[in-house]
């Protein structure tokens, strides 16, 4: 699991709670570092913040989708941007989940697991559409 967020506190929350769900966690504090790690480590999923210095989350998602090697890595946006237009952009960039801050880190592990199971089941497109049709998450 790769957590990309310039906020140390958010990274810490994700790390502790994802590990508690039995997952291995990688962290990146900005977009560029996130891209490098994703390309190198091929995580099962990326939890991706949007507003970050230098390389923002949208750019990371766009570049991962443009690269055949990383295209299939599922992206869950983890952002304070709650605007419907942002959700639509998240969907367009291939996100399979959209979590708006503040979020409950205790359930983040369960959420990620559910996303992975559904992708396994071939429900990737439904997950994408869920970004705009399920504004709760």
């Amino acid at each position, binding site marked *: 699991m790769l957590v990309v967020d310039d906020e140390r506190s*958010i990274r810490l*929350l994700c790390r502790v709670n994802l590990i508690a769900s039995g997952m291995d966690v990688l962290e990146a*504090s900005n977009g560029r570092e996130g891209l490098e790690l994703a390309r190198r480590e091929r995580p099962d999923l990326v939890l991706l913040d949007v507003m970050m210095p*230098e390389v923002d989350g949208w750019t990371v998602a766009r570049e991962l989708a443009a690269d055949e090697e990383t295209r299939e890595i599922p992206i869950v946006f983890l952002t304070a941007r709650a605007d419907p237009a942002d959700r639509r952009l998240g969907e367009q960039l291939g996100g399979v989940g959209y979590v708006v801050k503040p979020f*409950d880190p205790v359930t983040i592990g369960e959420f990620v697991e559910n996303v992975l199971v559904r992708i396994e089941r071939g429900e990737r497109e439904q997950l994408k559409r869920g970004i705009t049709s399920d504004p709760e998450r």
Partner: protein
Amino acid sequence: MSTPESSEAADRARRLQRVAELLAEAVTPQEVLDSILTEGVRAAEARAGAIGVLSADGASVELLAQRGYDTSAMAGWTMFPLEADVPMSEVIRTGEPVFLASVQERNERYPALADQGQESNALVVVPLAVEGRVFGAMSLSFDRDVFFEPERREMKLTLARQAAQALARSRLYAAEQDLRRRMTFLAEASEVLASSLDYNFTLTQVAQLSVPGLADWCAIDMVGPTGEIERLAVAHEDPEKVRWAYELQDRYPPDPDAPTGVPQVLRTGEPEFFPELPQELLDEAIGDDEELRRIVDELGLKSTICVPLIARGRTLGALTLIAAETHPPYTQADLEQALELARRAAVAVDNARLYREAERGADAARALGYVGDGVVLLDIAGHVLHWNPAAASITNVSEEDAVGRLVSEVVPAWDALTSHVPLVPPGGAASPVTVPIVLGDRERWVSVSGVDFGDGTVYALQDVTEEHALEKTRADFVATASHELRTPLAAVYGAVRTLRRDDVELSEADRSQFLEMIESEATRLAKIVDQILLAGQLDADAVELDVTECDLEQVAAGVIESAAVHVPESISLGLSVDGAAPIRCDENKLRQVLVNLVDNAVKYSPEGGRVELRVRSVNGSCQIEVADEGLGIPPDEHERIFEKFYRLDPQQTQGVGGSGLGLYICRELVERMNGRLHVESEPGKGSRFTVELPLRR
């Protein structure tokens, strides 16, 4: 030795000579008549004489004057038909003189006169003719029966020739004088009419000019804006009578449907002329109103002319002339003069109105020139009739390039611009619609409203590009503020939720980190809320400064120290102080400014970047620079970054967020301490923010 006959002939010649001399001196028709009827009658050895002329219409004989006849007997002979079987009519008809030796002879030839003037004797009636044209006749009555032998007849005919010449000459002179007087009056009236564009004034002047020469009373009535009759002027020589006339008008307002008078003339556009005002007409107008009858009798109205003021086919008003106590009854010449006067007055009124309308139009156009909103006037086919400077500025099309052309050719986006604009009728509540319009390479937001006035459309355009941008900035601020609040909130909430997990054993280090996180993120939240509140206070000018002497070096060191606690390890901080002199300021506010500038510098610094805080004194001021090696700021944004809510494009900040209030607050605070804050920067080469504060004196 002379015979009695030759002596008589010489005597006749002398008398004729005497008459000729007198007639030569007579200038006016009255003087001529006087001379003929005194010296002429005497020269003819007659008892009485009379002179009649053909009336203007050629149907009657008008008795001009008489001398020696019984006035009561002549009362019925002031005017009689040309066809009448009486000597004067016959002489004028035939041009042949009539010599009647006695009353018997007269009665035999003119039985109609058999019962009149039986005490009369011989009668001579000779034609008055000039250049073969008979225009009247002179009668001479004698106090005895006379046999008119040829010499006597010739003498009467000679006298008639002299009288005719003199009378014709004097009448010509009088007519010429009359024409000159009329022309002079018209010239004076024209001069008055041309003297001012205030036709209320000029028409009043013309009315006054008309009395007493043209009338005893002159009134001018105009058609008001809603068709009502408005009395503009009344003139009479006696001001008291004028006042009285207005009172009368108030008591007896004109009936717009009246079959005669001003209402009739205004309705039909035809003049009304009563050379002699018929009594029945007056009776009809007066009705049973005894008071009105008394007034009308007192006025002594004799003759009236009422002519319309017509210009370009429209009846604008009416001019009324009344002959009463002094003026003789009106003639056809008077009517013609009145018509000419009315024609000139109407042209003057029409010109004044046109000028006033043109001036109003020019005023309106001038006013529109200063209006900040664009005003576009189109005819029904969509041609531009008016295009004010603001419209030119908004559309970037000059007035010269727009007027007269189809608006869709002038501004190709016009139809798209106005297709959603509801057109309201004049006086209706306009509903402006804000639409974007792309002109060349620039986009503008324009608020458009339209009024359809039947003959065309008028559009008001307001450039709301800036307001729209501000609105967008505000909306962005809400999104940004929301983001800024959500992030620390997420950390606090997440930390609490994690700490309360009972299914996970947290290490002591993690637990401690979460507690620190709650503390620091709660502080961050409070800071953001403070910023929003402070911006509100600055707006309301409710920020109070606590100005004290301030050790700048100490403040700067404190700022760097506290920044060092949370700055990422990859970014280095530096402080240099070069002769900081003491200043007076609000130390907390200055610290707040520097903390914000340093935080910004850190936030935008790349990895490995350095943030420097430099303090120095320069030319009577103290300068504090905060320099970074970050992304930099494009030159055209150097001022805008200090605007409230303004934030650089996220593309330029690579996603770094902010409330858009920090730099606004910094500049406002520095300026309130009599200082200034500015930035020097180039994209990719870092930024240098400088606070300048005056040194303490």
